[in-house]
């Protein structure tokens, strides 16, 4: 296992470098003078001042040198300054990332808590009404735009029924009840796609496992059905669910960008969108990098968990 871990970690180094290179390359996509873009709008600058900025951001140097300087700063936690707040990007992002993380984890937990039992029930009662309902939900859940699901939830539970707040964020550690009430709708909206996918995955994995010989043996030995399903079948059926984890992290982060906008949640996604309109480029670049790194870590974690659960992986790779 240790050997596998070391090999995986070494493999990630080139990927990490390429990821940072891609994020850095965003700067090259800015049309016109990047010096102007970097200080933000509304600043009338003469050529002399622009020259100072070019020096400061090393824009006068070759691209690869710029990348090297940028990377060495990023590694030390210097993501540049936000042009709208005149503060370090990382400080601004840090507090907001915490909000995004709360919603992301909650959505992920919610998705698993609903999807895994639903997928199992669906497989066990294959072809019956419960299975059809679960399948219908999982098909719909993948096709529905998550933010539109959120809007419709606001319409029903916020506007018509008035049960839940439609907007805003309350810190759950300061006011647990209001905090939870504010979290319910966005978390459902954020988790729906993942929930549908995991449900589908669990169902088909479970069906496959239930057809295996060892399950038949367990039944033949006279084990009760809950033990067969809960102990023998479930363990193997959950393997493919783990692989979905890495993929879903990206989905949930990307989802946060939109869902936070719908519900007015002051998270990282919302902050990045506002930064686009404020032409605060460094904030967007920093946000993209942090999110990409989070997805990369989740992928790595998934691989490691998978290898730990299924020893065959360690040797086949």
């Amino acid at each position, binding site marked *: 296992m240790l050997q596998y871990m070391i090999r995986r970690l070494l493999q990630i180094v*080139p*990927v990490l470098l*390429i*990821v940072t290179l*891609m*994020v850095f390359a*965003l*700067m090259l*996509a*800015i*049309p016109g003078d990047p010096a102007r*873009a970097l200080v933000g709008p509304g600043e009338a600058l003469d050529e002399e001042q622009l020259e100072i900025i070019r020096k400061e951001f090393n824009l006068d140097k070759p691209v690869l040198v710029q990348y090297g300087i940028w990377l060495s700063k990023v590694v030390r936690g210097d993501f540049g300054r936000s042009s709208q707040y005149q503060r370090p990007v990382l400080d601004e992002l840090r507090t907001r990332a915490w909000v995004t993380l709360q919603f992301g984890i909650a959505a992920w937990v919610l998705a698993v808590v609903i999807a895994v039992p639903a997928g199992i029930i669906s497989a066990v009662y294959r072809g019956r009404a419960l299975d059809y309902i679960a399948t219908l939900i999982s*098909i*719909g859940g*993948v*096709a*529905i*735009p*998550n*933010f*539109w699901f959120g*809007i*419709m939830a*606001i*319409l029903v539970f916020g*506007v018509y029924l008035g049960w839940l707040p439609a907007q805003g964020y309350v810190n759950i550690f300061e006011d647990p009840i209001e905090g939870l009430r504010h979290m319910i709708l966005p978390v459902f909206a954020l988790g729906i796609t993942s929930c549908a996918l995991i449900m589908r995955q669990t169902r*088909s994995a479970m069906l496959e496992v239930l057809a295996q010989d060892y399950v038949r043996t367990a039944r033949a030995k006279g084990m009760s059905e809950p033990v067969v399903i809960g102990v023998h079948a479930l363990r193997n059926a959950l393997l*493919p669910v783990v692989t979905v984890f890495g*993929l879903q992290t*990206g*989905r949930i*982060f*990307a989802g946060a*960008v*939109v869902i936070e*906008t*719908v519900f007015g949640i002051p998270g990282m996604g919302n902050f*990045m*969108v506002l*930064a*686009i*309109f404020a*032409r605060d*480029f460094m904030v*967007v*670049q920093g*946000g*993209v990098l942090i*999110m*990409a790194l989070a*997805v*990369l870590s989740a*992928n790595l974690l998934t691989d490691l968990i998978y290898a730990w659960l299924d020893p065959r992986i360690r040797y086949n790779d």
Partner: protein
Amino acid sequence: MTSRPSIEVLKKTMRIPQAAFGVVVMVIIVFSAIFAPWITSADPEEMDFDNLLQGFSEEHILGSDQMGRDTLARLLYGARVALMVSLGAVGLGVIIGVPLGLVSVYCRGYIDDIIMRVMDALVVFPSLLIAVGLAAAMGGSLPTVIIAIGIANIPWMARIIRSQGLTIREQDFVAAAEAGGMSHFRIIFKHILPNSIAPVIVQSTLSMGYAVLTEAALGFIGVGIQPPTPTWGNMLLQAYPMLDQQPLLSIVPGLAIFLLVLAFNFVGDALRDVLDPRLKGVIH
């Protein structure tokens, strides 16, 4: 490749009810997008200040928005954008991803390593994130949206081609072709490419649905294609503040997105089952 097997696939696919439903929905949406000016005489950008925020009515069948613009007309013209983005983005993914995958299979060794590490890195960026980054740099527009979603499609296509290629390369008929003196280059085009087409078609269909969702999300956060051009996403953005006054405005475009994505998914799933049932685990 003759047309015979493809007709056979089509027949088999259409026998699956979900796929038939999906194809019908797709055909309807494609036709209404193309023939939008003939279906409705209303101009999607024309304001009608006598009929603001209407529900179903005679003047505006699907209602009107806060500027009195006709929702049906905007929906139909928005379908054009949705289809252009999904076709363009997936096309871009195929055009770049497939050759990369082939080069990877053909060259093996360190070139394969380099290409695959770049693909690993690309996978880390959800399409929405690429789009947000590009929109910040270049501004939101049709090409930006297509490029952003297209880039996100590249690694999946390349990976599929590569994994197919690796399997096929081990097969006897490839060994036979090699022994017969066929060049690697010809082997790729005669054997590996045709045998990899099926999963690429399946992935493309499913990716088109995902592209529609991403385009809508971008439109909704305001960094996609900019108004006054109607897109389903920016329609939802403009409808959102009016949610309690005229919910129909928010319901209609969302339903359209849902239906189109559902159609793509149904057809994609059916094609996968028909073309190659073994692909179930491979394609996301």
